[in-house]
């Protein structure tokens, strides 16, 4: 379920991070960081004993703004050794992992932390290996097995061996399973999940405390055969004031920034409540906000605030309507090596830029543009209309279309529209694409002829030039996700294609080559 979402997510965060490093406010939860390194630092810190003895809970609370109740709950649940299993749940970027790791660091004496982020351990085998290797790092470990167990029974036996070795020295072991929700989409997730959740009963070790961290709600883990419920700590999303506190934390010019936030935060907060996304949007906006100011250290008065507000207002309206901003250079790179970009990310970029960046240039060959357009037409138009649309005159047979629509009853039309909406762009075989491509290139040559009466020879050669390495262009477009190649049709045996671009982008491409696209689009 979450599978198709994940790659998008990573590309989004990496893309937003590429122009300038995220405004690494130290309070923002680890989820918002583009790289896992801060979390790793936290992990190391959590594993190490605290530096000063008896650090009060206030220090912990100061590091977790807006998470007071949750932190206190965590401390209480985790505190003395025997504890029932615990599950932390809440949306993304609510500071679950950070709060847990900080609380574990805060809890004092000898304790060991075994941390497994299931998102980065994509199979049961990897998970088992990671857990056991983390445990066997102890010099007292008796179970230095070289073979990684891949059966659950062997794993539980090995884990119990390793844990009893550690526990017998009076240490408390905290087993943390992060990103528990991803297990559900694993191959054998249905079997692994009850195993992980019942580990407390299976191990029967008092000194081992199990902690699960999940962004899915607890009811996602109910199974057919009854479930063992851990205690829950819920992490709600941050409220406006909490987000403000987090963003304000350690800012060099708090007065200026708070006046900026009072303008910008509320409207953005209506769109998204995630701190990581908000901070990514706010950072370039703040730079805009400061543009009229010579001195960044200035403390703004009322008049200046108003002036700055008027300055930033238009940018704010733009920022509200884009998911992430990419400087021109980066987006070019994205197109060129689009193969590495996640599914649809390039498309979304363009769509996000819609309306504000008419200066956006397509660094794409003319034939690729035509190919893109013909793919778009092939996906949107019904195949039966091809003959009507692309007849020898190159124009559109209005008469025929009108008759057709008048014949069709309203109800039929509605259902067809409905179907088109549901099915999305259709697929088409390569032959149809090439036929349309040939038609529209010849049409555009005709138009060019009408306009500047170029000699016949040149246009002829131009057409053949456009047709030359179409297949090469096609594979490029497929790689950069403008087209997608779907499964081959069982009857015909050839691959079918589908265009992934939306109408806005298609129109923009058409404009760049002066092609009258709207004339060829079948409107229902």
């Amino acid at each position, binding site marked *: *379920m*979450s599978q*198709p*979402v994940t790659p*998008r997510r990573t590309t989004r965060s990496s893309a937003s991070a590429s122009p300038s490093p995220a405004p690494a406010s130290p309070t923002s939860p680890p989820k918002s960081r583009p790289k896992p390194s801060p979390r790793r630092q936290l992990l190391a810190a959590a594993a190490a004993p605290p530096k000063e003895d008896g650090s009060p809970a206030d220090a912990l609370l100061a590091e977790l703004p807006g998470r007071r109740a949750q932190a206190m709950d965590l401390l209480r*649940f985790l505190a*003395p050794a*025997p*504890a*029932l299993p615990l599950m932390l749940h809440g*949306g*993304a970027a609510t500071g679950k992992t950070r709060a847990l790791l900080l609380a574990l660091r805060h809890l004092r004496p000898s304790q060991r932390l075994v941390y497994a982020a299931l998102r980065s351990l994509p199979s049961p085998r990897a998970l088992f290996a990671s857990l056991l290797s983390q445990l066997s790092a102890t010099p007292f470990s008796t179970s230095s097995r070289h073979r990684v167990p891949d*059966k*659950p*029974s062997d794993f*539980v036996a090995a884990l119990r061996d390793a844990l009893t070795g550690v526990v017998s020295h009076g240490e408390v072991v905290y087993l943390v399973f992060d990103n528990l929700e991803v297990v559900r989409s694993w191959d054998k997730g249905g*079997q692994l999940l009850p*195993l992980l959740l*019942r580990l407390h*009963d*299976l191990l029967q070790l*008092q000194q081992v405390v199990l902690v699960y961290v999940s*962004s*899915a*709600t607890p*009811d996602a883990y109910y199974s057919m*055969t*009854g*479930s*063992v*419920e851990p*205690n*829950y700590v*819920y992490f*709600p*999303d941050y409220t406006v004031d909490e987000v403000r506190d987090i963003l304000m934390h350690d800012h060099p010019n708090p007065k200026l920034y708070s006046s900026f936030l009072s303008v910008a935060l509320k409207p953005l*907060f*209506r*769109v*998204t*409540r995630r701190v990581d996304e908000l901070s990514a949007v706010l950072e370039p906006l703040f730079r805009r906000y400061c543009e009229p100011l010579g001195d960044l250290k200035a403390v703004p008065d009322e008049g200046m605030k108003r002036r700055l507000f008027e300055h930033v207002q238009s940018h704010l309206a733009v920022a*509200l*309507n*884009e*998911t992430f901003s990419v400087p021109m250079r980066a987006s070019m790179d994205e197109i060129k090596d689009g193969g590495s970009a996640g*599914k*649809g990310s390039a498309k*979304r970029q363009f*769509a*996000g830029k*819609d309306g504000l960046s008419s200066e956006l240039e397509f660094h794409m060959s003319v034939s690729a543009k035509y190919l893109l357009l013909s793919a778009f037409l092939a996906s949107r138009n019904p195949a039966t209309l091809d003959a009507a649309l692309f007849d020898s005159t190159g124009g559109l047979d209005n008469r025929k279309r009108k008759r057709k629509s008048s014949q069709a009853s309203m109800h039929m039309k509605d259902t067809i529209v409905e179907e088109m*909406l*549901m*099915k*999305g*762009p259709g697929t088409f075989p390569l032959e149809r694409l090439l036929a349309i491509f040939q038609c529209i290139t010849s049409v555009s040559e005709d138009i060019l002829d009408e306009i500047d009466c170029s000699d016949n020879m040149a246009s002829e050669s131009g057409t053949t030039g456009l047709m030359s390495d179409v297949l090469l262009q096609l594979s490029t477009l497929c790689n950069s996700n403008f087209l*997608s190649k779907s*499964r081959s049709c069982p009857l015909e045996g050839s691959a079918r294609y589908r265009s*992934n671009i*939306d109408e806005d982008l298609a129109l923009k491409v058409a404009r760049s080559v002066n092609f009258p696209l709207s004339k060829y689009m079948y409107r229902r």
Partner: protein
Amino acid sequence: MAAAAAAAAASVASQAQAVLRGRLCDQAVVHAALRSSPDTNYSKLKYLVASSVSEACNNSVLLLGPRGCGKAAVVDMVLDDLKKEHPDAISVIRLNGMLHSDDNCATKASSDDNTEFMIDMLRECGLAHKTIIFVLEEFDLFAQGKQRLLYSLLDAMQSLTSQAVVIGVSCRLDADQLLEKRVRSRFSHRKLLFVPSSVDSLQRLMEHLLALPEDSPLPTKYVREYNARSIFNDKKFKGILSSLTDADATTSHILRFLVVSYMDIDSGLLSMQSFMNALSSMQRQPKMDSLQDLSILELYILVCMNRLEDKEKSSYNFITIMKEYKSVQDAYKTSDKYSHTVCFRAFEHLLDRELISFADNKGRNQALEYRPVKLLISSRELAESLKLNTTCPAVLQKLLDRERYM
């Protein structure tokens, strides 16, 4: 002086908490009450196993009941007792359906050697007057597939020389119906049913668990003062208990409740308030919680989806939702008109939170916009959360209400 006294009191309280936590996490303490009374599953099981050990016969029994009623704890207690009574006449083999069902079946399938080995082993043990006790946890999982393990085990027990007891533990009440005919005929149909305890016995259990033992290292004065509090006879407490057991009356549920509630002790004594707090935190509704966490735009999308469902659309996708959203925005001219991509991000957040999901698993290679989706919340829940949300614009409320009453 006063500060020192307060610190001392705090440390006593935290010590008391540690003691309580130890008691709550220890299964033996939790289920100790079963040991004392005569007519419990504990005594029945003990009698059964003890008699088959002393009379050197074969036996099999199923312990059935919902999770968290103390089945495994009873087995543990019985086995512990018997091991003390007959130190060298018993050997226990524990198998868990979750862990061992595949492996054993796999080895059984490969050859019949294992079966013969098992018969030999049972015979040897029988000759040595040693009883083997098989504890099969998650018994229902052994009943999946060909049931070779169960068959060979129970078949081997048919011979006179062997001496074994099979104890199956399962949370499925119909576990014995899952057995194949050949297995069932070899199974003695002894079943011990575990049911959640009554409110009275649960109350006794809570009193027992939350009492501090006299022999603890805590000061006796404190222990006496602590134990003297008769909070359990309060009307309010009974109300809390009954509302708790209405939802789930298993022992483990009560345990979780106690763990949550005892933690709130600041003064070192139990208070009604802490029980109330614990109850409210146990009765959270995760879906409602995550509905409260939504941004305005995400709420708009949910309302649009709800409108589509009310129009009895059989299936719809993101594009259809956007159409609806646009029409809503055009009709009401709100300030919350956002671009396609921003809405798509909000849509993805909703997918992430699992408030909506894809309606089918087909079309994995299709673009997300076109995959049909469905709501995972009811319109009642949505309406309630809109009512609770203070920042929610009035238009949304109206949009949701209008379609319901028109």
